[in-house]
């Protein structure tokens, strides 16, 4: 690691997590992918080992670390070879739970955050709907106040962890007529009556990660199921998305750097036309150029993380980091396939899996186009 951002403690955590990933995750990545699932115990074990709450207070079972502990977590998970499991963990630690830590009541933290940190309750985040992806204010899922309770109706799609989650951090409309001001967050137990996993979606990549379509039919939630403030859900979730996008950028930049290491290995091992791939100009130059972009992206990501760590909210840089991180991670995955040629498309090597997995980055958590839109807006365009 090239900087002083990481203290001796960060490096200790990194070493422990790297050993854990080497021993407990990477060897199973292929098997989980083929099975189309990872076992829930994998999440619980990661929680028991203390890696699901690095940034959360010790009071709830967390490690009590800072943002760079989360960065370490994302960077090491990026080396796991399982895009699916890394994504499930990200949802657990950096998407579905930060709003609880930030906006939740003490009771909500005890009921949802603490068991999530222990890996006992797997979490999902319910934003996207069949008719509304990037357009969060356009969601239709509705929570109606009825006799002191809330009654939720609607549906969500592309919900990572959705088929196995114990609870959902849910975005719903509490006022159909209001746009942004009509959105509220809820904590919804997935075993509540009326919650149905209507479909488990088959994806082209990220096979070990479950992606659900959820249907809510007259799901009754108590008054205190609201997370944060009523009518402030849009702003809460926009806040969440910044953290989600930044950590995704961290992970993808680290994954890209790891991908470059693997391409170098392949280039040294394999021969074409009587020469090592590494002895072909086109391979050396493409790898060198891509590696330069990876490094530049990593530094952009670190500078953005510095500001986030200081409590700033740099939407422009976060959106740039997400756009650049996903794009370079994708380029590395594509270069891996190209360099390896036919072996790149062969299921016996993980290159094609990285290629399929990495493609989601340019879509999930806000597409490239949405990121460009946000950056443009932040530049007063």
């Amino acid at each position, binding site marked *: 690691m090239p900087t002083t951002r990481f203290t001796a403690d960060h490096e200790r955590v990194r070493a422990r997590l790297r050993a854990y990933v080497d021993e407990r995750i990477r060897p199973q990545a292929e098997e989980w992918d083929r099975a189309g699932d990872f076992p829930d115990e994998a999440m619980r074990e990661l929680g028991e080992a203390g890696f699901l709450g690095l940034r959360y207070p010790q009071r709830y079972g967390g490690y009590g670390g800072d943002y760079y502990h989360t960065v370490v977590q994302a960077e090491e998970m990026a080396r796991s070879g399982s895009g699916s499991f890394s994504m499930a963990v990200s949802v657990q630690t950096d998407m579905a739970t930060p709003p609880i830590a930030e906006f939740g009541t003490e009771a909500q933290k005890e009921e949802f955050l603490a068991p999530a940190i222990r890996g006992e309750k797997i979490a999902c985040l319910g934003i996207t709907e069949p008719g*509304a992806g990037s357009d969060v204010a356009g969601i239709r899922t509705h929570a109606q106040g009825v006799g002191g309770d809330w009654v939720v109706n609607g549906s969500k799609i592309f919900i990572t962890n959705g088929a196995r989650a114990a609870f959902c951090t849910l975005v719903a409309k509490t006022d159909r007529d209001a746009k942004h001001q009509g959105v509220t967050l809820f904590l919804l137990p997935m075993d509540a009556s009326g919650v149905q996993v209507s479909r488990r979606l088959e994806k082209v990549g990220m096979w070990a990660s479950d992606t659900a379509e959820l249907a809510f039919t007259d799901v009754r939630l108590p008054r205190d199921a609201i997370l944060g403030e009523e009518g402030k859900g849009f702003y809460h979730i926009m806040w969440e998305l910044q953290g989600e996008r930044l950590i995704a950028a961290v992970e993808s930049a680290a994954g890209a750097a790891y991908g470059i290491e693997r391409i170098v290995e392949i280039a040294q091992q394999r021969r074409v036309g009587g020469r090592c791939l590494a002895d072909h100009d086109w391979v050396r130059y493409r790898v060198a150029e891509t590696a330069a972009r990876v490094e530049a992206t990593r530094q952009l990501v670190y500078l953005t993380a510095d500001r986030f760590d200081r409590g700033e909210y740099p939407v422009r840089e976060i959106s740039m980091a997400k756009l650049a991180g996903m794009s370079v991670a994708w380029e590395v995955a594509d270069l891996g396939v190209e360099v390896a040629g036919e*072996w790149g498309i062969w299921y016996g090597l993980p290159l094609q899996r990285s290629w399929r997995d990495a493609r989601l980055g340019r879509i999930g958590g806000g597409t490239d186009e949405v990121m460009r839109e946000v950056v443009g807006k932040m530049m007063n365009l």
Partner: protein
Amino acid sequence: MTFPAVRDRPYHLFEPEHDELRDALRRLVDDRLVPRAGDLERERAFPRELLAELGELGYLGLAFPHDAGGADDVVADAVLSEELGRSGLYGVAGATIELRAAALALLLGGADAQRQRILPGLLAGRALWALGVGEPSLDPDPHEIRASARSGEGRFELSGEKAFVPLAGVADGYLVAARTAERVALFAVEAGSLEAAEEEVLGSWECPVGTVHLDGAVIDANARLPAGAPDILAAVGRWRALAEGFALVGLAARALDVALAYGLERQAFDRPVARFQVWRHRWAEAATDLESTRALCIHALRLYAAGEPAARAIAAARLRAGRVAYRMADEGVQMHGGYGYMMEFDAQRFWRDARQATVVGGGDHPYLETIARELGL
């Protein structure tokens, strides 16, 4: 032998009969392949019956001489490639290309007896043959072949392994490249004498590829094709590059159509996604790329059909076609948003197929090498 037959009016490529052929193929593809494309791939339903049907209709032999049962019409042959590519089920186009490539290798390099024995069934789509050239060394260059054929007592004993052999496991025979004491030759080997195993790969699951193990296979001495493998493969390679160019243009066109149809239907921020300026311009660029690439393919076909030097044009056409198909398919996934990543939508299949088609056989490099050589570099 002159292949393809030189045409009288090479600058007037598409005759009414070609338009009729295109219409007929389009109906067949739209009725039989497009509606079930996703299932056919998922079920790994190798289209053996369809290939037999195409053979029976004379489509597999379009480019071949009349005395081989063909139509001597390389233009019609290109129409076939493009329209099958347009099915968006690239493995089907690929399978017909593999069959025709094997048939062409026999036509150009086979002995009379070999041609008479194999070609009629092959062009009729009844007996499927495929070329097995590449080896696990990751090297598509026939000069680097290590598989060997040791001769003795009127026989050859083969050893070695062929990697990423098209139609592995479903072919009835393979033309395998192996080194004898003197040179590299092709051997026509019945599938029964070899062990073939299908490998799992990224795309085009309806058309298997796999490994063919040669070790221990003992074949008759007259299984060797008389002409040298590098010469045959170079000639087959030119035809193949052109056929793939048209098939990839077809695939790109399908990816474009499907993406636009989705993008016009899908609403975001109160309007169809495809109507956002950024997408309108991206698709305008993509459509321009597609149109110019198709024109380049037609230009290469014209030279090829006229018997003029066509190597550079063909290589350029194939290079561009691969890139356009992959780019179009990738843009198609992106336009679909989250749905583009879902197996139930066709966008991801075009994308996997296009990626696979652009890395097999050495990827872009043989074409870049050819163009560079033609430039005197």
